[in-house]
């Protein structure tokens, strides 16, 4: 049990616990906050796994931008206390069923993995090395992803325009 593995277990407990709390919250703002903690833990995990750049990006994009966007929408649409019953039976049963099957597959896969993998060594990739690797080996994927982001941008702009046009008046929506 080295200091690294201790850190890993602590982070794993933090991530799992906060995620578990997040998915069962009725108040969406609380859910978002717990999820931010979870993503923050993931970022620390990435740092532990030797990816400082990814750790920073995880905090900036996941915990920062994406979760703020969620928070923003939740605050703007004002819909706390929407679900009168948190887990109606109609959703609960299939979810449990699917998750059970998934869990079984997971366990079987891990049990069947008999190759006695050694514990992972600790290493760190410098941001410059990683950047060079990324842009030399995966330049096409980078272009595709940037195209995807551009499409997302245009799509959201289109959606926003559309919503501003022929909608019910704001007062009616508020009711």
């Amino acid at each position: 049990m080295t200091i690294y593995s201790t850190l890993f277990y602590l982070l794993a407990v933090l991530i799992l616990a906060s995620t578990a709390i997040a998915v069962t919250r009725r108040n969406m703002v609380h859910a978002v906050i717990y999820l931010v903690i979870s993503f923050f833990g993931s970022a620390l995990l990435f740092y532990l796994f030797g990816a400082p750049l990814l750790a920073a990006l995880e905090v900036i994009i996941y915990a920062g931008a994406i979760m703020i966007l969620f928070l923003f929408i939740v605050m703007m649409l004002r819909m706390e206390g929407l679900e009168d019953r948190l887990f109606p039976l109609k959703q609960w049963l299939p979810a449990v069923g699917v998750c059970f099957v998934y869990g079984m597959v997971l366990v079987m896969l891990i049990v069947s993995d008999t190759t006695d993998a050694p514990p992972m060594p600790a290493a760190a990739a410098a941001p410059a090395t990683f950047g060079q690797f990324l842009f030399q080996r995966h330049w096409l994927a980078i272009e595709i992803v940037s195209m995807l982001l551009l499409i997302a941008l245009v799509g959201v702009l289109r959606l926003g325009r559309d919503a501003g046009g022929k909608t019910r008046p704001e007062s009616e929506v508020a009711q």
Partner: protein
Amino acid sequence: MSNWIAGFIVLMVKIAVVLGALLLSAAYLVWAERKLLGRLQVRLGPNRAGKFGLLQPIADALKMLCKEDIVPSAADRVIFLLAPAVVALTALLMFAVVPFGPPIVLWGREVPQVVSDINVALLYVFALSTLGVYGVALGGWASNSKFALLGGIRGAAQMISYELALGLSLIPVVMMAGSFSLVDIVNAQAEMPYIVFQPVAFAIFVIAAMAESKRIPFDLPEAENELGAGFHTEYSGMRFGLFFIGEYVHMQVLGALTAVFFLGGWRGPLLPGPIWLFIKIILVALIMIWIRGTLPRLRYDQLMALGWKVLIPASLVNILLTGAFLLV
């Protein structure tokens, strides 16, 4: 082992010194701002507590500590209590990567004059500044008051919009220095500060930084005359004080970052490094106060238009030009 312990002690001392200096100068920045703003508006500013009002920050701090800490009954208690801490903490933590001098040799050990030199320091600063948005947005939401909620929403929208311009304006600097580490960026400016090569990036950075720290032409989240005090309408006592400390520490951190990225950091003739950095921070802060005393608050649509239609395209063009220049 003794080496490890010595390193730990040095680190703790550095943290204590930086934290103390930061908080003290935050308090006196408030004094300087009130005094200078007074003179800009042909007033006197605080002059009652002590000579030239120099004890005013202490009096303010005592007053805030003695005040009752009120939590609105319909507020979300835990979040309401934690939000100011988030704002103050993220602002304070940001200073950890700012170098304030060249490495010095103490008792045969080389001690770098920076709390922590991590290789993704620039991204670390951004990560903390995005997390600072939570303090504003959640403080506004948890107050359960319509003014605070509007302030929180405005703050979140404004800060994530200007985060982009802030980040994009720094990419030319990173391209020229070839590193995310602030120590390397300062070292790369040994001959010439980057403001000479990157005046556009400098202008964009300063504007975005002011929007990021909610300074006056961009203080829509707390617009006094339309929202009360915005996201901290419902706060009182030292929790309000924490928001205040966060704002002024943030101002200093942004001054320090401006100095590091564009003005050559701690580099300067004659005087030692920390003093040069301090002079540059104060210079940036004074200019921010001057801008505050001059410009009126932007309207919300003007704010968004400035961010998305002016600053971001300008910084993208700037990146393109810098890249072309570096290649040729």
